[in-house]
């Protein structure tokens, strides 16, 4: 900004309203940490193909339901011996195994096979142990073979090209590099050995959960942004028209808003989804979810904007603009709506979580994103059923990411509201949203 002040003045140049908002926001630690969390979440999702060690749908039938290597590893335990007969009817002794989770033992560790400390992280390969029970039934149990350590390599080349960067499927940049992974030449050879870098474990199809979460974030996080953008656009247009013109337009538009608000949200979403055919391409599914959430979501925003425009319409500057011969469109677009900008931004930030949660609910219920795509709601769908959850508790990890994203948006939104609300300066407590 150029200094247009008179040379005598020692005062800094006056701050514009956005600058003041930013200044106040910067002091709010919670809001800034929320913004930082969001930045990280969006960045890692966009670069998901690069950061994740595997492809988004790399099914591996040998590594089904293995725990998160960041937190420890499974170790095999012999729990019993059973006497069985081999093919020549000779008695032989078979072992019954069970696996035990050890927290922060094994998994990602920092020593090589010889036991020497290295800075390079290592993982143990997973071995399939055959466990026999007293009835002669066999079961394959996947656990670490702690006698071997495999180094984790950085910037490895994958055999297939994949998206290194993409904005939820748009503007993809293709490449072959993964940030980390296990190089093909490091894989130990052995029939029962299956080496993989599963930082957060694997899902019920043996896919790396961390990679799936990264790819899922592209969808779950962008649904919120695009959905709120559409909702705000509809809300601004309809709220602006209703508030400015009043009369019949106002009456009917507000009845429409009341209609949308009168039906319980999730029921309306499900009914709208019901009307759409099931056979959709992934891109169409995505568009459909965004459209449904935006249609349901604009109503409350539209009503709020209408209320603000209604009061701003009578303000002196709006009167002046009209007196100077400004057309209705010009008065609405140039004078009224920009004055609702700060509140619109605050509302948008606080509403984004509803869109994220809406996508999660739809996909979780089986009406949204479907396999082989990934979204955080779809990933949570795998944990339905207490048995699955009991033996594979790491499958709830995607919920943690949803929680983090919503929390960060709430932090940021609260901070923005305080910063946009001048009363926050006077020490008057803010009214909570009910």
């Amino acid at each position, binding site marked *: 900004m150029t200094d247009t002040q008179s040379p005598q003045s020692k005062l800094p140049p006056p701050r514009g309203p956005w600058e003041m908002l930013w200044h106040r926001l910067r002091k709010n630690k919670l809001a800034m940490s929320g913004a930082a969390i969001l930045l990280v979440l969006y960045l890692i999702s966009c670069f998901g193909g690069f950061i994740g060690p595997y492809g988004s749908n790399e099914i591996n039938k040998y590594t089904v339901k293995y725990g998160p290597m960041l937190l420890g590893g499974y170790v095999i335990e012999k729990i019993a011996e059973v006497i069985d007969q081999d093919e020549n009817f000779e008695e032989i002794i078979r072992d019954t195994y069970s696996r035990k989770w050890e927290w922060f033992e094994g998994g990602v560790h920092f020593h090589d096979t010889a036991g020497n400390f290295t800075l390079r992280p290592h993982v143990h390969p997973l071995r399939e142990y055959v466990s026999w029970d007293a009835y002669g039934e066999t079961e394959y149990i996947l656990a670490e073979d702690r006698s071997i350590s495999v180094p984790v390599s950085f910037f490895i080349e994958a055999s297939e090209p994949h998206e290194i960067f993409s904005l939820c499927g748009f503007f993809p940049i293709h490449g072959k590099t993964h940030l980390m992974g296990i190089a093909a030449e490091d894989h130990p050879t052995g029939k029962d050995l299956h080496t993989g870098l599963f930082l957060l474990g694997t899902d019920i199809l043996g896919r790396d959960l961390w990679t799936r979460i990264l790819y899922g974030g592209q969808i779950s996080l962008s649904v919120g942004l695009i959905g709120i953008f559409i909702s705000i656009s509809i809300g601004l247009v309809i709220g602006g028209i209703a508030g400015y013109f009043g009369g019949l337009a106002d009456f009917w538009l507000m009845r429409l808003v*009341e*209609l949308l608000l009168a*039906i*319980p949200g*999730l029921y309306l979403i499900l009914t709208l989804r019901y*009307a759409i055919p099931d056979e959709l391409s992934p891109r169409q599914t995505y568009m459909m979810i965004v459209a449904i959430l935006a249609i349901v979501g604009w109503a409350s925003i539209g009503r709020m904007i209408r209320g603000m425009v209604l009061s701003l319409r009578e303000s002196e500057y709006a009167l002046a603009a009209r007196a100077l011969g400004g057309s209705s469109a010009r008065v609405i677009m140039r004078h009224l709506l920009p004055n609702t900008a700060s509140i619109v931004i605050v509302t948008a930030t606080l509403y984004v979580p509803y869109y994220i*949660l809406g996508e999660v609910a739809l996909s979780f219920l089986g009406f949204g994103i479907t396999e082989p795509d990934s979204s955080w709601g779809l990933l949570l769908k795998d944990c339905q059923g207490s048995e699955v959850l009991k033996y594979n508790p790491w499958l709830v990890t995607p919920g943690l990411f949803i929680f983090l994203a919503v929390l960060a948006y709430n932090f940021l939104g609260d901070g923005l509201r305080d910063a946009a609300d001048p009363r926050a300066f006077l020490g008057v407590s803010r009214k*909570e949203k009910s």
Partner: protein
Amino acid sequence: MLTFTLRRLLSIPPLVLVVSLLTFLLLKAAPGDFYSQQEADPARSLTEVLRQKESSGLLVRLSQTQLEEFGEFRDDGSMWSFRDDGEKVPTILRDGIVVRGRSASRSLLNFQIESTKYQCDDEGVVYRKVGPIESFFSWFSNAASGDFGRSYKFNRPVFGIIAERLWNTLILSIAALLIAYGLGIPLGIFAAVKPNSLVDHSAGILAFIGLSIPTVFSALLAVLFATYTGWFPIGDMRSLDYDLFGFWGKIGDRLHHLFLPAIVLGTAAMAGYMRQARGNMIEALGQDYVRTARAKGVSHNSVLFKHAFRNAVNPLVTLFGYSLASLLSGSLLVEIVMNWPGLGRLVFEAISAKDEPLVLASVLISTLLLVFGNLVADLLLALVDPRVRLS
């Protein structure tokens, strides 16, 4: 206030009409119906399925004379005609080839004349598909006299099914609300009395967590907790041996089952109440009447609990109408994850099965509850706070 109440009440019938029409059209716009799967099932007799569809009001059987009036018509690029061969049902020909009647293959026959769709079973009985507007009016005239139809899936009047499930959802929502009030308000008040204390800060963080945790996630965590500790039952409202318990045993069993779902459902509301109670209390403590009371020498506790507390909490208590309405729809995910036989799960299952009368009635009932809940909340707020004017 009377006019306000009357006007709000009068706005309900048109709302119900529009909501039911909207829901109805959305349901009809969906491809296929409840019977689509049965029609494709070779093990089911088509005659039987179509007869069921007729008794559900989806089809109307056409008489012989009506069919003969069609003469010849064109659909899908083929010529269709009906011929009376002296049998019970007419012979149907497509491009001159017999498709129903003697020496014809047996499968469901769909054809369309102008915009009306027809179905024909393997015996040659022709039905006309009832159009959405027509079936809406017949549904609506029945509904106006109190008959909301029968569920396709349960083959029972929808009201009986919904009443049962709604009661379960109400129990869950009220329990969640009690937890939200019982924990949220004391915590919020305590945080406000000692602002910037450890309690205040941890309550603030707790509130953020409670408001941000997705219901699906917290419900899954609760299930995980229950499986690992074994302290709580997972799913359903009562144990299998419920009938063997005594009176108190029954109540205890129900509370035991209710506890976790109610906590999960109540978390967000609790966090909201806590923040609001804190805000209201801080505002109340800054008011002149509190200073006056202090100056008069009223004891600290008396000022807190007689003067400030009542003013801070009054508006909160009246909010239960809004909360109940939002909990009703919010319980859907909890009910599905925690296997609670409530209205939300019913709607979800009905939508999955395309059980239209059930979906329609459930959406209507929950809409009514939401609207009434909001109305009660508005009225209560005006009753306890003379500054609120309803117009």
